């Protein structure tokens, strides 16, 4: 198309200026992509470490400390309640104390590991030993350090609910759940062992994980309706601070991106405004030869578009390189990236589209100026 070629030729004739503004747009876009990916990665990490290994929804007894019946058909109903539900894991838990001078408090938790591993992934988080097959226990690494026990040792615990005689249990494995409180206090065993220990056949709760962690509130409300007579909680209401923090982070990331875009727009607008002045002679000639004002202004819109497209391409390559470099070189002692940076194609596409749109917007003023340019001024002033 003729006008597009004119626009391209005008840009190409001032190579340095064109290159600089394209790089300018590119840097803007790459900063956007980098910051966006970084924040998104940070947030995913944060959400993952907060809720990745915990229950999103728990069903427990309405009375505090009360127990539920261990009822497989109820469990089946919950599992079938919604496609969002990933796993329903029964648990029986209760307090205990180590039989030592400090009477260190612990929480004994009995799981069905087929299901519990979906949530807590004990299997992969074992640092020593093996999963409990029958009546063995696995404990957190912090607790093991504190008590000075290793795999194969046994621990004496008192279960206040059933009496004050210490009971000896075998440690068959040591886990690291990545959370100090849990690593210090949890003693994990099979559900049947826990039931034997607590001398009852009930459950403390059903722990549920869902696929979309932010669907938990809606799901809880629906479940409360469907399963009356239970206490049903979900993670978001207990983590409002975290969610507010995430929100704040998203907003500041958006602000940064908006300001980057504004500076890109101002950059393009000023370059194109200068370009109208530089090319006013050419525009005058073209108008004398019969180009319409509308077409004269299109030339500058096309220039904006070309700058935007090439700038976006430069920006995407630079941005991805930055993200890649960051996750390759910014690593912690164990070689894992400090932050797991996420490359989100949709986000990149949006930021490229915004850059192109911004370039078009930036070219509106120069385009209008070029439409208004008067031939006679140009012809008279040579």
């Amino acid at each position, binding site marked *: 198309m*003729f006008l597009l070629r004119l626009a391209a*030729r005008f840009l190409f004739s001032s190579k340095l200026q064109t290159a600089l503004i394209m790089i300018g747009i590119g840097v803007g876009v790459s900063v956007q992509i980098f910051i966006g990916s970084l924040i998104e990665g940070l947030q995913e990490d944060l959400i993952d470490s907060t809720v990745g290994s915990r229950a999103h929804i728990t069903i427990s007894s309405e009375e505090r400390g009360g127990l539920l019946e261990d009822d497989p058909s109820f469990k089946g109903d919950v599992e079938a309640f919604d496609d969002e539900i990933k796993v329903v894991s029964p648990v029986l838990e209760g307090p205990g104390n180590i039989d030592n001078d400090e009477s260190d408090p612990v929480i004994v938790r009995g799981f069905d590991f087929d299901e519990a591993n979906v949530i807590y992934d004990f299997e992969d988080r074992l640092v020593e030993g093996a999963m409990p097959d029958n009546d063995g226990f696995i404990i957190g690494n912090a607790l093991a350090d504190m008590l000075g026990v290793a795999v194969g040792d046994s621990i004496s615990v008192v279960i206040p609910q059933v009496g004050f005689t210490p009971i000896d249990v075998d440690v068959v494995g040591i886990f690291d759940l990545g959370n100090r409180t849990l690593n210090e206090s949890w003693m994990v065993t099979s559900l049947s062992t826990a039931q034997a220990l607590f001398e009852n056949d009930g459950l403390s709760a059903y722990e549920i994980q869902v696929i979309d962690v932010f669907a938990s509130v809606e799901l809880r409300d629906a479940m409360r309706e469907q399963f009356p007579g239970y206490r049903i909680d979900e993670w978001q209401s207990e983590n409002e601070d975290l969610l507010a923090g995430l929100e704040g982070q998203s907003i500041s990331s958006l602000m940064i991106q908006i300001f980057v875009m504004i500076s890109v727009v101002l950059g393009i607008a000023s370059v194109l405004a200068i370009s109208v002045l530089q090319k006013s002679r050419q525009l005058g000639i*073209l108008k004398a*030869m*019969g180009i319409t*004002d509308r077409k004269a202004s299109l030339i500058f819109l096309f220039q904006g578009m070309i700058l935007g497209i090439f700038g976006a391409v430069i920006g995407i390559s630079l941005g991805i390189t930055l993200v890649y470099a960051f996750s390759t070189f910014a690593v912690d002692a164990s070689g894992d990236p400090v932050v797991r940076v996420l490359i989100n194609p949709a986000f990149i596409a949006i930021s490229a589209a915004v850059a192109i749109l911004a370039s078009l917007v930036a070219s509106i003023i120069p385009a209008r100026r070029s439409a208004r340019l008067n031939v006679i001024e140009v012809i008279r002033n040579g």
Partner: protein
Amino acid sequence: MADYALELKGIEKTYGGAVPTKVLHGIDLVIPRHSFNAIIGQSGSGKSTLLNIIGTLDVPTSGEVSILSRPTHEMDKSALAKLRNETIGFIFQHHYLLPEFTVLENILMPHRIKAGKVSGSALKYANELIGFVGLEHVKNNLATDISGGQQQRTAIARALINRPEIILADEPTGSLDSATTDKVYALLKKINEQYKTTFIVITHDQNVAEKAERIIELKDGRIHLDFYTK
């Protein structure tokens, strides 16, 4: 009426500002088709102002311009742009080529504006014109990489590409030496005869003016003399 290239009625032009200056005082003029006309007059007499009004690049303060029987004061800006593109070729004192483009591309520019893309026949005609003005060996040079005379000849070929009815030239040889000036005028005459194009040429050069069939002399914004040379 149909056979007039141009018809001017009561053209006046006043430039605004703190002290308005009236530059043209009621010009009436009829230019027949296929004619070769020279406009002469002292510097500041209003020649360029008149020519720019004729070419619809400027608007008169009052009065009417008709081009090929079409009243231009009734047309909007984009209709005027189309009219200029299709019926008028401009040659200015400075060549006003687009420096970003080659000789051939510059010559094809009015055609591109008109048609959007270059047809085979237009390209053929452009090459014919290039031969006509003797630019074969520089046709792919950038417009800035040729001599002044070559630039002016490029501008002439460009003015011709859309086969306009009328060519308006404002001191087309003002920046050329006398030998080249003679060559350019011989060329314009040849075009006038071969393509039946109507010419209005502003010149300072008495020798040149005398080669025109009609000479119109402006003085202080009025037609002072208007006569045929033969």
